[in-house]
C-alpha cells in the first residue's frame, strides 16, 4: 500500500475516533448553531457543560451557550452565562470575545453604564491594544446613551484613527464627527427633573414640556375637575366627601401626573438617543471596514 494511502486511512481513522468522542457532540452543537437552531444548540451546550473537566473547555462552552441566548434575544440569560467566566490570564484567546459579548449584552439589555464598566475593565486588563477597535462602536453608543458627548466624540475620533483610512477620507470622517457633535446637532435632551418640577407647579405642564401636549391638557383637566369637585362638596357641607374622596383622588392624579411627566421625558430621551445612535450605526456600517 503506498504511503499516501496509509496517511489518508490513518487520518480518517483518527477523525472517526475524534468524532465518536466528545467532539462529535461539539460538532453537533456547532452545526445546530450554524443552522440557526439556537434553542436546541443552547441545550446541547448545557449538556456538554456538565460533562467537561477542564476550566478552559467550561469557559468556551459557557461562551457558546451565551451566544445562543444572544441570538434568541435573551440578553439577561446570556449575561448570566457570561458573568461567571473569569480569566486569570488576559492572553487567553477567549478573553477579548467574552468581554466584548458581556459589554454588548449589557448594552442590549438596557444597561449602558455596566457596558462601559466592562469595556473599561477590558482596556485596563488587556495588553492587546490592536483589539480595542471592536469595542469602540458599543462604547460610543453607551457614551451617547449616558449623554457623555465629549467622551463620545473622542471615542468616535479614535475609532476613525484605528481604521487606517486614506488621509482625505479620514479628514472627511473627522469633519462629519465634529458636525455630528456640534451643540446644535445634538439631540435636545429633556430634563426629567425639570419635567417633574413643571408638573409639580402646574399639573400637565411637565407632559407638554416632554412633548405630549394632548396628555398634558387631559392631565390638567382631570386635576382641575377633581379639585373643583372637592371644593364644591366642601362648599355644600359634604366635608367627608370633599376632603376624603375629592382630595384623596386629587392626591393620586397630582402625584400620578408628576410621575408620568418624568416617564414621558425619559421615553422621549430614549427615542432621541436611539435615532441619534441609529444614524451613527448606519454611517459606521456604510463607511468602515468591519472585520
Amino acid at each position, binding site marked *: 500500500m*503506498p504511503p*499516501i*494511502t496509509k496517511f*489518508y*486511512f490513518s*487520518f*480518517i481513522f483518527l*477523525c472517526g475516533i475524534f468524532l465518536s468522542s466528545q467532539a462529535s457532540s*461539539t*460538532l453537533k452543537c*456547532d452545526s445546530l*448553531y*450554524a443552522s440557526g437552531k439556537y434553542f436546541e444548540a443552547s441545550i446541547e451546550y448545557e449538556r456538554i457543560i456538565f460533562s467537561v473537566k477542564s476550566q478552559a473547555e467550561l469557559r*468556551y462552552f459557557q461562551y*457558546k451557550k451565551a451566544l445562543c441566548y444572544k441570538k434568541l*434575544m435573551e440578553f*439577561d440569560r446570556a449575561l448570566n452565562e457570561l458573568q461567571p467566566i473569569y480569566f486569570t490570564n488576559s492572553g487567553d*484567546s477567549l478573553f*477579548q*470575545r467574552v468581554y*466584548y459579548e458581556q459589554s*454588548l449584552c449589557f*448594552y*442590549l439589555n*438596557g444597561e449602558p453604564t455596566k457596558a462601559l464598566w466592562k469595556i473599561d475593565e477590558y482596556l485596563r486588563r488587556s495588553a492587546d491594544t490592536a483589539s480595542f477597535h*471592536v469595542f469602540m*462602536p*458599543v462604547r460610543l*453608543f453607551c457614551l451617547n446613551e449616558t449623554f457623555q458627548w465629549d467622551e463620545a466624540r473622542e471615542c468616535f475620533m479614535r475609532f476613525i484613527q484605528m481604521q487606517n483610512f486614506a488621509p482625505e477620507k479620514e479628514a472627511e470622517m473627522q469633519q462629519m464627527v465634529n458636525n455630528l457633535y456640534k451643540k446644535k446637532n445634538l439631540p435636545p435632551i429633556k430634563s426629567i427633573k425639570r419635567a417633574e418640577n413643571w408638573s409639580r407647579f402646574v399639573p400637565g405642564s411637565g407632559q407638554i414640556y416632554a412633548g405630549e401636549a394632548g*396628555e398634558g391638557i*387631559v*392631565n390638567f383637566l*382631570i386635576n382641575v375637575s377633581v379639585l373643583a369637585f372637592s371644593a364644591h362638596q366642601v362648599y355644600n357641607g359634604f366635608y367627608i366627601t370633599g376632603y376624603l374622596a375629592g382630595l384623596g383622588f386629587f*392626591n*393620586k*392624579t*397630582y*402625584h*400620578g*401626573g*408628576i*410621575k*408620568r411627566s418624568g416617564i414621558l421625558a425619559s*421615553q422621549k430621551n*430614549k*427615542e432621541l438617543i*436611539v435615532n441619534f*445612535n*441609529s444614524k451613527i*450605526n*448606519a454611517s*459606521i*456600517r456604510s463607511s468602515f471596514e*468591519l*472585520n
Partner: protein
Amino acid sequence: MQSLLVRLKTSSLGLLLIFISSVSLAQHIDLKADLLLTDSVSKQKIHHHEKRPYIFKNQRKTFKNCNPVSLAYGGSLYVYQNVISQHLSADCLYDPSCSDFSKQVVKEYGLFKGGLLSVDRLNRCNRIAATDLDPGTINKKTHRFSDSVKRYK
C-alpha cells in the same frame, strides 16, 4: 487504486473543512451583524404610543358582547386604560394588571363570573394584601406578582 485514492483524498478534505469551519465559527466576532442587531433591538425598545385594545375587538357581534352592560363595561375599561390610568400614581401589584386581568377573565368566564373575579382581584390589590403574597411568584421582568387567569381554572 487511483479511484480509491481520490475518494480518500475527498473524504479527508471534507473532514478537514468541517474542523476548520467549526473553529472559525467559534473565533470570529461579526461586528457588522452585531451593529445590525444593536440597531434593531434599540428601535424595538422605543415606546410607541400604542392604544390598549377594546375588550371585544375583532370579535363576532353576539348578544354576549353587544348588550348594553357589556358595551358600558368595555367602553369604560377602554377609557380607563387609555386615558385615566396613566395619570394615576397608583401601581398595580400584579401581572397582568387588574384591568388586564378583568378583560381576560370576562372574556374567559363571561360578565357575571368575570366581574366577581375582578372585584375579588381589586380587593386583593392593596398594601395589606402585599404582605401575604409569595415572593417566589414575582415576575423578574415586570417586578410584579404573577396572578394569571390560568390560576382560576
